[in-house]
């Protein structure tokens, strides 16, 4: 008989599904600003999950992590990217290589693949919310679709940040006890990556007057 999931597992599963839904919403968001807001919302969900994990598993370190991740991913990253958008007065609408409907269909297929493939692996333990783990793999795969289908630098960068959110989700679910110093280093790394993404986007904009990747096609072979 399967035991009834405890409060943590229930919350983790719910939040995981919400994170996946925001990922889908990012896929269909036409405006870059809307996409950024969705990223902030997704990061907020993760911070909440960190607090829940801290309380229910008794790992006080996770409160610090939740605070830092809130400051960085909900406040600083969206702020930096918004400033970049304003400075480059770039196209406000991102553009997909596919229509929104086909993108979403494709994303549903890969998400289902991730969900069922992870389920089939039979990774299980008494303390592990398996659904949340499978959903986090689905989030990573949908983030791949987002990065591949979009043709502007900002969408690609935000797609990468949300991929990182998918990995954070997996790590909160299966590796909540990871020492704080490592978690903080991961976040610091993300911050550096954000800055570098910004620098390169700005340089590209300075060269080609646009943030579209369609101008980046000279290197082949």
């Amino acid at each position, binding site marked *: 008989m399967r035991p009834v999931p405890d409060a943590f597992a229930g919350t983790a599963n719910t939040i995981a599904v919400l994170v996946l839904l925001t990922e889908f919403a990012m896929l269909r968001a036409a405006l870059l600003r809307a996409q950024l807001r969705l990223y902030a919302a997704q990061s907020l969900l993760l911070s909440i999950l960190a607090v829940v994990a801290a309380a229910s598993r008794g790992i006080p370190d996770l409160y610090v992590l939740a605070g830092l991740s809130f400051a960085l991913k909900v406040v600083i990253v969206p702020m930096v990217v918004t400033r970049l958008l304003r400075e480059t007065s770039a196209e406000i609408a991102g553009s997909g290589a596919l229509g929104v409907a086909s993108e979403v269909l494709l994303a549903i297929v890969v998400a289902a693949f991730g969900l069922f493939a992870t389920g089939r692996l039979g990774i299980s333990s008494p303390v592990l919310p398996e659904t949340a783990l499978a959903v986090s793999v689905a989030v990573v795969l949908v983030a791949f679709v987002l990065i591949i289908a979009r043709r502007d630098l900002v969408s690609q960068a935000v797609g990468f940040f949300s991929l990182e959110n998918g990995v954070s989700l997996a790590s909160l679910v299966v590796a909540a*006890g990871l020492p704080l110093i490592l978690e903080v280093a991961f976040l610091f*790394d993300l911050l550096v*990556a954000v800055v570098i993404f910004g620098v390169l986007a700005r340089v590209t904009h300075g060269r080609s007057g646009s943030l579209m990747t369609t101008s980046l096609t000279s*290197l082949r*072979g």
Partner: protein
Amino acid sequence: MSAVLVGLLVVGFAAAALCLLLPPAGMRAATVAAGVVACGLSVWLVPTASGGDLTAGSYLRVDALSVVFLLATGLLYAMVAVYTVGYVEGQHGGTDMAVYQRRFYVGLNLFAGSLLAAPLVNGLALLWIAIEITTVVSALLVAIDVSDTATEAAWKYLLIASVGLGVALLATVFMYYAGTQVFGSSFDLAFTPLVSAGHRLAATPVRLAFVLAVLGFGTKVGLVPVHTWLPDAHAEAPTPVSALLSGALLATSFYAVLRYYQIAVAAVGPTFPRRVLLAFGVASLLLAALYLLDQRDIKRLLAYSSIEHMGILAIGVSFASPLAAFGVLLHVVVHAVAKGNAFMGAGVVVRRFGTKELAAVRGGITALPWSGPLLLASVLALSASPPFGVFRSEFAIVAGGLAAGRSAPAALLVALVTVAFVGLTWSTTRSLLEPADAPEPPGAWAGAAADGTSAAFRTTVARTATVTGGPGEPSAWMVAPVVAGLAVLVLLGVHVPGPLNDLLVRAAAQLGTGS
């Protein structure tokens, strides 16, 4: 002892900090000094580490395996530091020269520092962090020339490598999960406990983590099919950066794959991890060998050669024999030196002829009395001709494969390496040895037209006329490191010194191939 580890960790970052403050002469001195110190310290670690592991605090630890990679990076850092002095001097930066110079030296030292940090740290999570830092620093260095192509290459590199490292982070998470059943819910992913836990780790998560690690870190190693950033970044980066990317960054990422390999072999037995590495290795070697046959850009040519060599490393590990593992680890060191050499020589050619197009370079050996022959020797060394070290290492890999009864992959390896040899040497020897303004023998055009290259050949003849002046080298700084590198390659080809031999044997045993 632990002071040496701390010294290696900080030397690159300290040089970068100094370069922020000092005038140009000071920047040059600091960079060269840092390179030489890093090289000296890593050589100094060789005899010590072949005796036993060293630790400093709970975060730094080296064993024989990590010292092999430190040695490769240290040697290359020293060579590149000297070369950079000549390179930056003759570079007309797009922006203000002083600013360009400072950025270059600071970035180069930061990059080398982060490359040295990766093999020093103890634990899979810290390793991931170090490798992520190498990505962000080197992406900026790729873009430093602020041209359209450099920016494009840097963006591709940053995005693809970051996504790859996202996958590698997922691998770290799954490995952590595999460990929680042995170590409890909080532990720090240090190597030794994970390897000694062996079969007690849950098998499925370890397998999953290994595949994700090969895919994720493999993105930075340049394994096919996740290699797509590599030729662009290597070709568009400034030459000293290309040399470090190719010789040290790829190897350092391969080090991460080897750490996962070690744990996977201990936990789920050797068969599964070897199959995974063999598949990626053969794909890389095959694709790179074919691309090498028809490559027009000298730096892209060398970049594809790097993919080829990473494929050789992956196949060599999959052979699972102590001799092949010895060959793989020696190959890491000699490939770093040989590829660094080849890039540095190619950089001189590019500087002298003002183009990366192989077809536009003719008579290199007369125009460059030193660098021409040196580049020729480096390319021969790189394509595993005796008496250079790469010959010895590839020979050991093939012999190990045959001895382990894996004759089919070993034969495939030899065949593909031969194809790569043809591709690599054919175009470079033509550029170097074919005279710039050869008197046309009658019927030469007809012969050229028969193999379909006449148009390219004609434009070549027209374009090579732009090189003016007699023979001469751009800078002695850009020759000296190549001479030193060739000396190292010949030394390692003729005789592997005793302490290094002990180190490689011990590191090969660590890869669990003795079983």
